């Protein structure tokens, strides 16, 4: 596991010296800033119909606008993890060092989760701003961030898997975008289908997931889904890395 730590450190060091990191982080904050401003304006102008709804719960669980940047930025952040090494050829030096495929994948996955958290930390300021002008349900805020973390476990794992499978970064990004996009769309089925199909869609639904957490409800079904998918994708990534030697 020491090797995983070494891989993690290099991954983060390289990420934070890349221009990509700052382009993504900046656009991300601009997008969310505008989106949060629109929400506060909306709530300031309109009498709140449902008592539980606040700009913060609207931000975390309000609409598809929350997910659009994620569906784009997550693939961009994960595409380089393994596909970048394949393109640069550095995968050859990496995989001929005395390290296991498991350590490499776990190190890279952990690095991607750190990046995920870095993405979200600045949004804490929204909660602080709200607390300056009214009361904030800190329980719901904590649950929201917990929900975001859980969502990240499988977003990043899916991105990592696509990066392992794809020959180039751009293919990895497209595959991750398509996979997350399909999962997102299936979740929307919650609102248009009936019966068992509706149940399945609700289970997958990113929107439902975040709406539930934004209200402060920690629904274990969503946790089981997030973690199962994350473990599956990371496991498949390790398997695919091992299979690479035989390809």
């Amino acid at each position: 596991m020491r090797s995983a730590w070494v891989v993690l450190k290099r991954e983060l060091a390289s990420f934070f010296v890349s221009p990509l990191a700052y382009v993504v982080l900046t656009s991300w904050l601009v997008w969310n800033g505008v989106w949060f401003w629109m929400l506060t304006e909306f709530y300031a102008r309109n009498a709140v119909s449902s008592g539980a709804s606040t700009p913060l719960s609207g931000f975390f669980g309000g609409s598809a606008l929350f997910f659009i940047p994620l569906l784009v930025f997550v693939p961009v952040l994960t595409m380089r993890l393994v596909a970048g090494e394949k393109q640069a050829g550095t995968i050859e030096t990496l995989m001929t060092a005395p390290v296991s495929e498991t350590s490499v994948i776990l190190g890279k996955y952990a690095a991607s989760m750190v990046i995920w958290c870095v993405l979200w930390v600045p949004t804490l300021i929204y909660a602080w701003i709200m607390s300056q002008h009214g009361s904030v349900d800190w329980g719901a805020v904590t649950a929201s961030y917990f929900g975001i973390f859980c969502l990240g476990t499988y977003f990043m794992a899916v991105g990592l898997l696509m990066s392992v499978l794809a020959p180039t970064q751009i293919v990895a990004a497209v595959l991750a975008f398509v996979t997350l996009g399909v999962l997102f769309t299936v979740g929307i089925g919650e609102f248009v289908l009936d019966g068992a199909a509706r149940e399945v869609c609700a289970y997958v639904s990113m929107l439902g997931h975040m709406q539930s957490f934004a209200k402060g409800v920690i629904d274990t079904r969503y946790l089981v889904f997030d973690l199962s998918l994350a473990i599956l994708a990371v496991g498949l990534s390790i398997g695919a890395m091992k299979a690479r030697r035989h390809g």
Partner: protein
Amino acid sequence: MIEVEGLSRLYGSRLAVNDLSFRVEPGEIVGFLGPNGAGKSTTLRMLTGYLAPSSGEIQIDGIDAVRSSIRARERMGYMPEGVPLYREMRVREYLRHRAHLKRVPDVGEAVDRCLELAGVADARTRIVGQLSKGYRQRVGLAEALVADPPILILDEPTSGLDPNQVRQFRELVRSFGGKKTVLLSTHILSEVEAVCDRVIIIREGEKVADLAPGDSETSLEEVFAELTTAGAAQEAS
């Protein structure tokens, strides 16, 4: 010591390496020679654990490199063809990273030593991506040396070096004679004659010769041309 027995590698249905067997004794410097596409890089990639063989055995200092790949890799320094490096890192930072990955006990000392050996100490704080090809090549060599491994596997180590750097490189490799086991692939015949104790020539994945450069009465160039083109001509006719 490197022992290879009946090594084969298939890419799909194409046989890149076919039933290859050879030994490299401890402290020996062996040249691995062959025309482009003969299977040199594929063989070296199997030795270093990057690719799994389709069949055959590899022993690295008595360790089964197919089953105990990680333990075998601990004993090898490898410089792949084209010397892939993390371009965004600084030279010293990169070597420190590699030393940590290879579980070197005293990283600072190991990095300083390999920087000196490879002749890149003056570039230690520079960013890898901004270095000339010759410097990058030597950073790759420093990386292969950082864990002070008993075995060195070098895939076309002098491509991209200027004549002075080639000479320095050859002196360095010669200085390993008797201390490290070196297997270096190349298609530069003068390189083999300058540094190698023995040469293994392969063609289309098969070994066609295993000789000391001084063995034959004819020059290595003639031997090489004969072994790697005559057969092909025969097959064609």
